[in-house]
């Protein structure tokens, strides 16, 4: 459970699913109150079939398990130069599945997430992840080491990105 003294003033009356979508995978963190009930990273790469079908195959068990009433996704502005369209396909599949299950989908802009964590003095991705690892001790062991400029992003960073979106959403509510 998140340390209530550190995350003061944030309450969560619902079970929410926060998602961080990338071009080949998505990370999710399910929160009930300030408890992490599930988290993980699912790959949606498809060599032959459609990305949407693979996404559904990975996403449905997640929703079946945590039965959320709200999903929070980071809003993307425009098309990314690194995304060959798969990120949009994954987002589309997830949004469609949420609609089918009457799960409200909320978008959180990057700016809102950044301004929320700036209040706590976390201005970089690693600082945000470190802060979240302090708040949610059950995820602390997943915290990746600080990335060197020449290194790629570790997959576990996605988990903290998803959690950051969730906390920014709850803080804004």
């Amino acid at each position, binding site marked *: *459970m998140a340390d209530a003294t550190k995350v003061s003033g944030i309450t969560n*009356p*619902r*079970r929410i699913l926060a998602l961080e979508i990338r071009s080949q995978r998505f990370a999710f963190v399910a929160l*009930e*109150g300030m*408890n*992490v*009930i*599930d*988290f993980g990273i699912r790959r949606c790469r498809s060599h032959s079939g459609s990305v949407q079908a693979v996404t559904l195959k990975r996403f449905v068990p997640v929703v*079946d*398990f*945590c*039965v959320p*009433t709200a999903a929070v996704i980071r809003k993307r502005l425009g098309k990314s130069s690194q995304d060959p369209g798969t990120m949009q396909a994954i987002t589309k599949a997830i949004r469609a599945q949420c609609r089918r299950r009457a799960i409200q989908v909320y978008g959180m802009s990057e700016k809102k997430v950044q301004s929320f964590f700036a209040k706590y003095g976390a201005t970089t991705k690693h600082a945000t992840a470190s802060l979240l690892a302090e708040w949610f001790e*059950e995820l602390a*062991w997943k915290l990746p080491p600080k990335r060197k400029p020449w290194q790629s992003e570790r997959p576990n960073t996605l988990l903290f990105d998803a959690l950051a979106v969730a906390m920014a959403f709850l803080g804004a509510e």
Partner: protein
Amino acid sequence: MTDPALGNYLRMHRIKAGLSQREVANLLGYARPWQVSRHELSKTAPPLLTALAYQHIFQMPVSALFTGMHMTVADVIEQKLSAFERDLQDRSGKGHMAKATAHKLQWLTQRKSLA
């Protein structure tokens, strides 16, 4: 909490403890982790001894670990007890079993006041 409770919170407590399904399965005496997975997904209900083992591992009462299941059972039992009470009230004061019926009704009243 406005959302209905999940069937069980085994995964949440396992994540909190940082244990893998395989490790929990080993602690429970299962050879493979899939039994733990099935319990977490509420595909099967664990037998009584396993439920007690979960209670001991996570130091949480069974009713808190299996909240959704516990609430379902409690609802059904409460409905049945209400029907039983109505049945007893219809019978009270009649026949040679009147004393026993009165005792049962008294127990039901006490039970309600304790809840």
